[in-house]
């Protein structure tokens, strides 16, 4: 046999199996395209910050893992369907070597079509993607985007390797099987699945645990550690439930004779048992993928859409300076710069928003009588509280009060639970609580926070310094760091009033001068930080949508193949039923209810997952400065709605293919 023949055979085979191979090649094309674009994007020089590069690299990593798993999965499905065909070739006298050559040619054709098509599309749409990316980041840089040679090389090498892997798998399958097995292929008499009671119970238990953790978790800090556990529980639970739980439920229905022996339920229940046996894993995959798409897109969308809220949460005032290791001279220098530059740019400081005070900051473990001081802020400890120490003079001037405190007295303000006792221990010293405060300009009460904070008003700066000294005593950190952390800092926050361009210019001028003139100063501007926030959250949103699309393609393809393979299996079954006296309408009704159930079960489950995950993610997002729950809810609902519509369209298309086969 000559090469010519293999090529002809391979082409004919691909043509004959076009119903399954066209989607396969299409998937390959899309995956290559997605990979190439992401790779090229992350290789574009001068794109921006490091965070963005990390996010893009992460996205690329996920695409690689996904591409390997997914193309491999699809291929194994295809080769399973073709065993019979290959068996016939074998019996007609083709040796395994010849079959291997034929498969090699087929893989080559598929690979060339997939990689070539993917690269062409990737190069064509790369520019568009690049522009969209910049738009999302609200960046105004106009970098050139060209065909990236290293990205092309990457894509070719990666996908050739994947295709080679699938070929090896196929050859192994052929090698392991004898012709009779090959001939029998996929149509072996299937046994009714056994009920795996333990697995079903485990599934319920795991899902219950996962949900329980998600619902019970109170603080954002607990949420971080428990979220991961909950996700694992829910994923395992989902698989177990789809595999064993579904069959257990159906078997129970089957045992109820008066229910089972009704025309409506009879064929549906027994048919579903087999469907679940064959498709449970596929359905669980769809469910998990859908959940991932929904969670990813809804959270990143919320972060992106809620950017202004996030900025306002993170920066309550438009501009602020923080003078570490303050001294009266440095303070005067700072205030001079601020005064000069605001006047020079004809803007004024809004007195209602202005805050200037001294403070010492520490962390403490909340006990019944007071706080144990800590130097590290370990947020996984749920009793950890942020502690801010403010001298009473600053308190009086900010709040317009006239309070005087003795050195062993304290005024307490908490952003969360109130301090109820008469005394408060801070480190080793016991203070008398002179009173509690209901509100402070510095921070309003009951704002969502990672952990609650205590603002403690003390008699003077010496008192504050002595507490800080105690906290940092014996720390093995660098000397300078300890000195910096254990001294009082001066902060000054304010909003500016004036023309927007003037405000921006004033902020920039203040920052420039202070950073160069005043040692140990930190400046932060909401306006100036906006860019870096858009960099990060824009890139995350971008990756969210990008991966969302990829997972969606995967879900669609799994659904498509599921429908086709079921179509072939069901065809015979429904023909027999018609011969025995079931009419077309009944057949159609039965098919419909089975297909609908199988189709929308994963979606319903995914929505349930998302609803529960919502509870945890809502809390998690506080650590990302996002507290706008209604917005998050809206984003989630929109995502689910869009997804459901898309899902329904996919259903309509694939169901039509299915009916075509069955009829």
């Amino acid at each position, binding site marked *: 046999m000559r090469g010519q023949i293999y090529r002809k055979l391979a082409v004919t085979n691909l043509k004959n199996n076009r119903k399954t191979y066209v989607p396969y090649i299409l998937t390959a094309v899309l995956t290559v395209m997605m990979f190439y674009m992401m790779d090229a994007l992350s290789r574009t020089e001068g794109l921006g910050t490091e965070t963005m590069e990390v996010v893009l690299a992460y996205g690329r990593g996920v695409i690689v893992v996904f591409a390997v798993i997914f193309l491999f999965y699809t291929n194994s499905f295809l080769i399973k369907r073709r065993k019979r065909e290959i068996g016939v070739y074998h019996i007609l006298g083709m040796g395994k070597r010849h079959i291997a050559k034929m498969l090699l040619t087929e893989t080559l054709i598929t690979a060339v079509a997939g990689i070539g098509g993917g690269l062409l599309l990737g190069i064509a749409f790369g520019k568009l993607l690049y522009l969209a990316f910049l738009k999302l980041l609200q960046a105004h840089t106009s970098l050139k985007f060209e065909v990236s040679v290293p990205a092309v090389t990457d894509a070719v090498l990666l996908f050739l390797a994947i295709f080679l892997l699938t070929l090896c798998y196929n050859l192994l399958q052929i090698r392991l099987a004898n012709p009779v097995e090959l001939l029998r292929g996929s149509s072996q*008499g*299937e*046994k*009714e699945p056994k009920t795996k009671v333990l697995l079903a119970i485990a599934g319920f238990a795991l899902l219950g645990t996962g949900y329980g953790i998600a619902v019970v978790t109170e603080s954002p800090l607990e949420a971080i550690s428990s979220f991961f556990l909950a996700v694992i529980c829910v994923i395992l639970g989902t698989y177990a439930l789809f595999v064993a739980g579904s069959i257990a439920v159906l078997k129970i229905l089957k045992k109820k*004779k*008066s229910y089972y*022996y*009704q*025309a409506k339920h*009879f064929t549906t229940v*027994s*048919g579903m*048992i*087999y469907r679940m046996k064959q498709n449970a894993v596929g359905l669980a995959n769809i469910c998990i993928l859908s959940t991932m798409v929904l969670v990813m897109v809804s959270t990143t969308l919320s972060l992106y859409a809620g950017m202004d809220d996030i900025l306002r949460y993170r920066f309550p005032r438009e501009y602020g300076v923080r003078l570490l290791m303050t001294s009266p001279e440095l303070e005067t220098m700072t205030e001079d710069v601020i005064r000069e530059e605001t006047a020079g740019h004809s803007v004024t400081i809004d007195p209602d928003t202005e805050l200037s005070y001294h403070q010492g900051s520490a962390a403490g473990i909340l006990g019944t009588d007071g706080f144990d001081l800590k130097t590290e802020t370990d947020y996984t400890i749920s009793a950890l509280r942020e502690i801010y120490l403010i001298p009473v003079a600053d308190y009086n001037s900010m709040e317009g009060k006239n309070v005087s405190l003795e050195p062993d007295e304290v005024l307490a303000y908490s952003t969360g639970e109130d301090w109820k006792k008469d005394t408060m221990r801070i480190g080793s010293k016991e203070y008398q609580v002179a009173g509690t405060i209901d509100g402070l300009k510095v921070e309003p009460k009951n704002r969502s926070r990672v952990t609650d904070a205590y603002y403690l008003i003390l008699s003077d700066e010496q008192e504050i310094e002595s507490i800080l000294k105690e906290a940092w005593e014996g720390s093995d950190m660098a000397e300078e760091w300890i000195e910096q952390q254990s001294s009082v800092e001066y902060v000054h926050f304010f909003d500016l009033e004036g023309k927007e361009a003037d405000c921006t210019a004033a902020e920039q001028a203040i920052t420039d001068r202070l950073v160069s003139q005043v040692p140990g100063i930190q400046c932060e501007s909401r306006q100036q930080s906006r860019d870096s926030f858009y960099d990060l959250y824009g890139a995350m949103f971008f990756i969210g949508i990008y991966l969302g699309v990829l997972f969606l393609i995967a879900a669609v393809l799994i659904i498509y193949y599921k429908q086709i393979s079921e179509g072939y299996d069901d065809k015979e*079954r429904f023909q*027999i*039923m*018609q*011969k*025995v*006296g*079931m*009419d*077309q*309408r*009944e057949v159609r009704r039965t098919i419909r209810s089975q297909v609908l159930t199988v189709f929308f079960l994963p979606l319903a489950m995914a929505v349930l997952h998302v609803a529960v995950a919502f509870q945890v993610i809502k809390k998690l997002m506080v650590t990302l400065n996002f507290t706008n729950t209604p917005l998050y809810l809206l984003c989630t609902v929109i995502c689910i709605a869009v997804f459901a519509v898309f899902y329904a369209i996919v259903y309509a298309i694939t169901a039509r293919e299915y009916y075509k086969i069955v009829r």
Partner: protein
Amino acid sequence: MSSKSMEGHFSFFYNRRRKQNIEERTGKQMTLLEVQNVKKIYTTRFGGNQVEALRNVNFSVEQREYVAIMGESGSGKTTLLNILAALDRPTGGKVYLKGRDLSGVKEREMAAFRRQNLGFVFQDFNLLDTFSIEDNILLPLVLSGRKYKEMEKRLTPVVEKLRIADILQKYPYEVSGGQKQRAAVARALITRPQLILADEPTGALDSRAADALLQLFEEINRDGQTILMVTHSVKAASTAKRVLFIKDGEVFHQLYRGNLTNEQMYQKISDTLTVLTTGGDAR
């Protein structure tokens, strides 16, 4: 091969029999199935060639009869059976079941009509692998919306008669071919149909299982069940009370058992078949 001239040999039988049928249909109410001038023409998909599968078929089946229809592959047996089963519609002619014209049954009622009046036994059993033997047998009753109590009541005598009571909980892939076919017969019987249509019921069975099944058919027939069987097995046909021969889309000849034993009947059928085939060749 000239079949027209073959017809000459047997036409006198045939005409006399037809007259008799018509008399019976108008006179006594004993006729169950009446086939009149049935014709079926297929148009091939490409080129539009017309193929005449059935030219002009006439015969009738009385109640409690056991009729076998014989013919070679391509003689039109299967087409005829499909028309009798109302799975296919004739191009011309009429089929009456208990005096009711099948072409008058609406498409929507057809499935129910088939379920109530006809029982089917197929060569390849057509049992569903997803159902246990019991559920396979009950399937037509479930589709008719019967109560489970009634199903149970009907099930017991049928499965005892067919000697499959012990495999009810098994699945089709777990039992032998003979058992599968008996399950299929049970499925056909359980609706108490007017007529059982069997299409090569012994075709996929070994000789012992085939003999057992044919014996069962005889027993069922003795109990009063009308059976119409299509086969090309002489052995199978020799158990029938009457054998019709189809060739080139027409009923060519028929044999009555009378008082003959199965063996004698077998001989007679063989002889007829020999005449049919070699007679054609000789010409």
